[in-house]
């Protein structure tokens, strides 16, 4: 019973961790692949506000230091060079953003957001290259009027690669040709973002200089928040890490992880309780054997050790079985069909394969089982051989 409980406990721990973290990690990967690990955004400017301390007409004033943000980046090249000096930064892409642009196809009109990019820079800070589902990046590079549109919007407008469409901005209308269709899996991106070459975007949006923001890729993405604070202080621009931008969804995943942890703890406790019960039963059943061993010269410590070894053997077998069950279960879960295409795109249940889940599960079981084994093993050691034999003889 205790063996099966340990196998189940470890197996379920691994499966639940793999399933929960799978979605979280896939979400993070999708976000990082689309929006980068961090963004350098608006320029920060210090302001001083004066308040009359003694009422109207009073000569006494309190000055409060504050700050305000001025939209966009004035000197992106200069800022890019500064950003690249930070050790955790691997690449920077300058982006010019324009919102509420009308897009017209022969089928219908809609609204998109323009993202002017230098394609080679942008490929270093995103997974755009691997997100192309139709057309090629070369077509985008070589066509002077090339554009890349998300799958959702392309479907809405009935546009295919090679089709022409119009963009209307501030009363002017320009024609572009669809070079590629991408799909990030995030509906909010795939239905609004239209990528143009930087020079095309500057001309269309009438912004010959500056940028809306810089998108960064980092070596260690977990340090995005601390790096953002550091950069903000040095660069005098607002810098936001991916954790800050996605804190709502990350909060949801955290709540899910806590819920999983509670479930798993219950399973592990049941396994420990089963181990305790089993060993307590074994001690009761094996009192005769304890008496024999004690009569042969085995010490109390030897007896205690035997029962602890028994727990170790059950634990070892349980851990092995649990890890196998966990791996097989995780594999089975990964094959479960599941259509998601709003937060990210997937056709099956997403799992995360990590040795750490197996190590965590085994370590928790070791602690629980050894604690549960101590009481019965100590009870076994305390038994008096004379009492046992007298009891058996009766």
């Amino acid at each position, binding site marked *: 019973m205790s063996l099966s409980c340990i196998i189940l406990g470890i197996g379920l721990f691994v499966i639940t961790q793999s399933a929960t973290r799978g979605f979280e990690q896939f979400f993070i990967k999708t976000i990082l692949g689309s929006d980068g690990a961090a963004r350098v955004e608006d320029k920060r400017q210090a302001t001083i506000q004066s308040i009359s301390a003694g009422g109207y007409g009073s000569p006494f004033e309190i000055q409060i230091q504050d700050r305000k943000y001025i939209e966009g980046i004035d000197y992106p090249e200069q800022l890019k060079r500064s950003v690249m000096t930070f050790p955790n930064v691997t690449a920077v892409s300058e982006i010019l953003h324009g919102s509420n642009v009308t897009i017209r196809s022969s089928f219908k009109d809609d609204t998109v957001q323009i993202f002017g990019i230098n394609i080679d820079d942008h490929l270093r800070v995103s997974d755009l290259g691997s997100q192309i589902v139709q057309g090629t990046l070369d077509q985008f590079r070589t066509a002077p009027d090339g554009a890349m549109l998300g799958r959702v919007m392309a479907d809405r407008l009935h546009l295919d690669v090679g089709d022409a469409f119009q963009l209307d901005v501030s009363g002017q209308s320009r024609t572009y040709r669809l070079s590629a269709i991408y799909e990030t899996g995030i509906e909010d991106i795939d239905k609004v973002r239209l990528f143009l070459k930087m020079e095309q975007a500057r001309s269309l949006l009438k912004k010959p200089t500056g940028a809306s923001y810089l998108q960064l890729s980092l070596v260690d993405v977990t340090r995005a928040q601390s790096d953002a604070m550091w950069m903000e202080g040095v660069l005098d621009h607002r810098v936001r890490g991916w954790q800050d931008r996605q804190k709502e969804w990350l909060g949801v995943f955290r709540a899910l992880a806590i819920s999983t942890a509670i479930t798993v703890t219950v399973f592990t406790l049941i396994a420990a309780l089963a181990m305790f019960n089993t060993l307590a039963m074994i001690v009761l059943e094996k009192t005769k*054997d304890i008496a024999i061993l*004690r*009569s*042969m*010269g085995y010490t109390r410590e030897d007896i205690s050790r035997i029962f602890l070894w028994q727990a170790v053997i059950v634990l070892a077998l349980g851990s092995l079985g649990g890890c196998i069950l966990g791996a097989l279960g995780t594999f089975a879960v990964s094959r479960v069909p599941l259509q998601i295409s709003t937060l990210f795109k997937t056709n099956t249940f997403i799992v995360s394969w990590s040795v750490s889940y197996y190590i965590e599960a085994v370590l928790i079981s070791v602690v629980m089982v050894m604690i549960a084994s101590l009481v019965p093993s100590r009870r076994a050691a305390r038994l008096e051989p*004379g009492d046992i034999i007298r009891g058996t003889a009766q």
Partner: protein
Amino acid sequence: MSTQLGEVVLSCKGLHRYLGQDEGRVHVLKGVSFEARRGQVYAIVGPSGCGKSTLLYLLGLLDKPDQGEISIDGKLMSNDEDSSRTLARGEHIGFVFQFHFLMLEFTALENVMMPMRKLGRLSQTQMVSRATQLLESVGLGQKTHRLGTQLSGGEQQRVAVARALANQPSIILADEPTGNLDVTNSGIVFDLLTRLAKENGQAVVLVTHNPEIAARCDVRRPMRDGLFVE
């Protein structure tokens, strides 16, 4: 240590033992004194509840007396620490119980090797060799690798005799060793026990209800109400 026949290896003096608590407390042994010599077989006989087994467990250091002294090979052991009493059991005493008390999950060979394993005086090869030899001497040379569950009651008791002799103890204590066996097996086990003990110069103290077995012992000590009566 000398191993001359006739030498006293086990003695007790004025042993008192109470069992139970409060109103249920019973004075089981009332000042028992006893001596066992090498090469001799002693039978302690008497009605149920007279204190035979209680005395045997005290002599085997499995229990502590409320009063009195127990010496093993001349060394006073009755009030020693549990650790030294446990060590003495492993070195000097071999037990045979009525209900065989084999570890049924282990083979006959492994059961016989258990006391040797604890004492740690022999290598693995030497232990296997000695255990095989002992099992051959009790007529189980062909069944050394059988599990306890695959042996008959008589065979299990013979394994228990071999196990009791494993560490060449100076004292063999047997509590109704034939009590659970038929007449034929009782005779086989008793003969084995006495023959091997005499060959090795060991003192055998056995508790029995069987008058035929008792009559074949060198010394017969009847007990009644917690005292030897002869």
